[in-house]
């Protein structure tokens, strides 16, 4: 066991992965990752070409160039940094480049705010990246390692974003277990690229102009990668479980099977929610939790199945879809339930924006509300704000 901040745990995973190229730029609260990695480079602990770029846009562009060349490429960022990468996120996924990127979740400007919410990653939910949200720093470390395998799976070949809550995880010290270097190297294995740019004798053209005749088919072929991605996430999570005893999947059910009132959350809030569930259970309240780990691809059938027995469900969103009906997670869950013909009352809670603390009493109040929602049998006041002043 070792005590580490989330950022340093991620940096440690990156040291063990030892990507061929890391191109990164500092931004709060991600900075420690890039500076720790620069230290590994400076001390000769990794044989990585570290490209200290002049912006996140160039970080992702350099990762695209490197990954297309046929090597393992990584970067890490937060908030505005990923907003600046936006354009290139889509190009990375369309080129089917297995880039791995820890994203330390931070609210998007404006106004400028350096604390946690999910507006950065949720905004990029349609960019074609696999998105895995972690609950703890241990999971951030574990998932960074797994992400390499998931991204490089021949049936997947998609970039992966590991979303960890800014400050709450990135700057909090947690005791955790690390794998020996050799175990990580063995787990991720050697990378064999398909049609790399640096295959000089077999030249390929990457990123041509795609006319209306072909663009749609290319998007279609990309869409076909997400069901296998779901399987790869489960497969790699299982294999990691055999190695470490820590098994991961698309989501985690916590006291959900026999629950009547369910809460669905992403990220570190699940830790607090588990505590709340335990307390409520002691009082005889049938509370349960679904902690969604994999938001992209969205496990619609699996989630619908897992919550279908509930009397009522609350979906917590740590971001806003301005002008939309509820947050992005709520939308996905409702679509999943509707198409699966699972008609249960669902309400949405927008919470924790810009690092607003979410306390046990906040989450306990959701379960109180859920009892009312269940007895009403209908969703009144569907989209609610949690922990905001009037």
């Amino acid at each position: 066991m070792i005590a580490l901040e989330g950022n340093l745990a991620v940096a440690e995973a990156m040291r063990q992965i030892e990507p061929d190229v890391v191109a990164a730029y500092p931004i709060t609260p991600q900075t420690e990752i890039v500076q720790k990695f620069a230290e590994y480079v400076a001390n000769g602990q990794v044989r990585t070409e570290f490209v200290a770029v002049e912006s996140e846009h160039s970080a992702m562009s350099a990762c695209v160039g490197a990954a297309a060349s046929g090597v393992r490429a990584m970067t890490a960022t937060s908030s505005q940094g990923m907003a600046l990468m936006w354009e290139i996120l889509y190009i990375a996924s369309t080129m089917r480049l297995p880039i791995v990127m820890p994203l330390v979740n931070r609210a998007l400007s404006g106004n400028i705010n350096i604390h946690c919410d999910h507006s950065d990653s949720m905004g990029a939910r349609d960019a074609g990246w696999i998105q895995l949200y972690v609950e703890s720093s241990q999971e951030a470390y574990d998932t960074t390692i797994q992400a390499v395998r998931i991204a490089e799976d021949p049936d997947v070949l998609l970039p992966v974003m590991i979303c960890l809550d800014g400050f709450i995880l990135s700057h909090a010290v947690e005791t955790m277990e690390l794998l020996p270097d050799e175990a990580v190297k063995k787990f991720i294995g050697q990378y064999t690229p398909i049609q790399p740019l640096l295959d000089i004798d077999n030249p390929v053209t990457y990123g041509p102009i795609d006319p209306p005749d072909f663009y749609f088919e290319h998007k279609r072929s990309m869409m076909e990668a997400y069901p296998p991605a779901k399987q790869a996430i489960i497969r790699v999570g299982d294999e990691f479980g055999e190695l470490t005893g820590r098994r991961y999947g698309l989501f985690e059910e916590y006291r959900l099977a026999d629950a009547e009132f369910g809460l669905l959350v992403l990220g570190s809030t699940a830790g607090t929610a588990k505590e709340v569930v335990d307390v409520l259970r002691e009082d005889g309240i049938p509370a349960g939790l679904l902690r969604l780990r994999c938001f992209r691809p969205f496990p619609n059938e699996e989630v619908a199945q897992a919550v279908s027995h509930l009397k009522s469900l609350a979906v917590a969103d740590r971001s806003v879809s301005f002008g939309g009906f509820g947050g992005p997670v709520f939308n996905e869950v409702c679509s999943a339930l509707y198409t699966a013909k699972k008609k249960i009352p669902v309400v949405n809670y927008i919470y924790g924006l810009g690092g607003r603390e979410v306390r046990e009493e906040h989450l306990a109040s959701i379960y109180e509300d859920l009892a009312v929602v269940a007895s009403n049998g209908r969703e009144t006041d569907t989209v609610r704000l949690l922990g905001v002043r009037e």
Partner: protein
Amino acid sequence: MASLKQLATMPERLTGGHRLCSGCGESIIVRQILMGTNHPVVVANATGCLEVCTTMFPQTAWKVPWIHCAFENVAATISGVEAAYLALKAKGKFDRDVRFLAFGGDGGTYDIGFQALSGALERGHRMVYVCLNNEAYMNTGIQRSSATPKGTFTTTSPVGSARPGKREQRKDLTACVAAHNIPYVAQAIPGRWNDLVTKAQKAFDAEGPAFLNVLSPCPLGWRHDSSLSAQITRVAVDACIWPLYEVVDGEWRLNYAPRQKLPVEDYFRLQGRYQHLFAKGNEALLKEIQETVDKEWDKLLKKCGGQVWRERPAPKTAEATAQAAGAD
């Protein structure tokens, strides 16, 4: 420098049949640049005419590895390619000696790609960056860029009753790049192939970033006869509007000075984009442009020591002298 005959036998790395306009400077420049090295080359391309016209899926005109990512980031993209190459080399997984080449238009280089270019130059990636400078956003339909000279007609600096074309001076990007203190920087034209191929060779040989700013005629945007493309660039040089020079490890070298400096009018008369300058009422503007060109030329002459650079002959050694004597 190889002879024209030798160059003509080099394998084509950009094949014909692409969709660039007749008389476009870009493919001529690209082929001349590619003649500058026998090493394998990986090409990165910014969004623009060259990218659009050479890679219409499912066809490609490129016989070398080629990547296009986006508009403003070709310097960053090639940085990543070069970094991957270095990583593989360091691990003994790659044994070829490859050169890295980036193409961007003036929009992708002077304007939107300026930051990525500056960053890549500062980081010292070994790459040859070529700006295909046709002095406006031609791919989107002739909009002004910061490379567009003062007084030029473009669709976003149109000539109207209140404005005589672009009002601002162009950016001196070559000097901006030289200020990064990289090993090799040069200006060139496709109309002087010997100079351009030689500069490409020097750029590929430079052990660090190299930058070539090449004036690229655009019959559509400049409104000239497509048969005049090469000639127009030579007139630009003779009018001292686009001087041929290089900056080698910080030393400014003038490559050519016209025996008889041509008036800017001689260059402007060949192109529709400047015809308004000859209209009544624009005499002062035309005079001002000439004065600016003269002033810039004088500044360049000073930087270059007042004369055309001559390669110094290699110092004679005793051995070489003896050999020469023996040969007699």
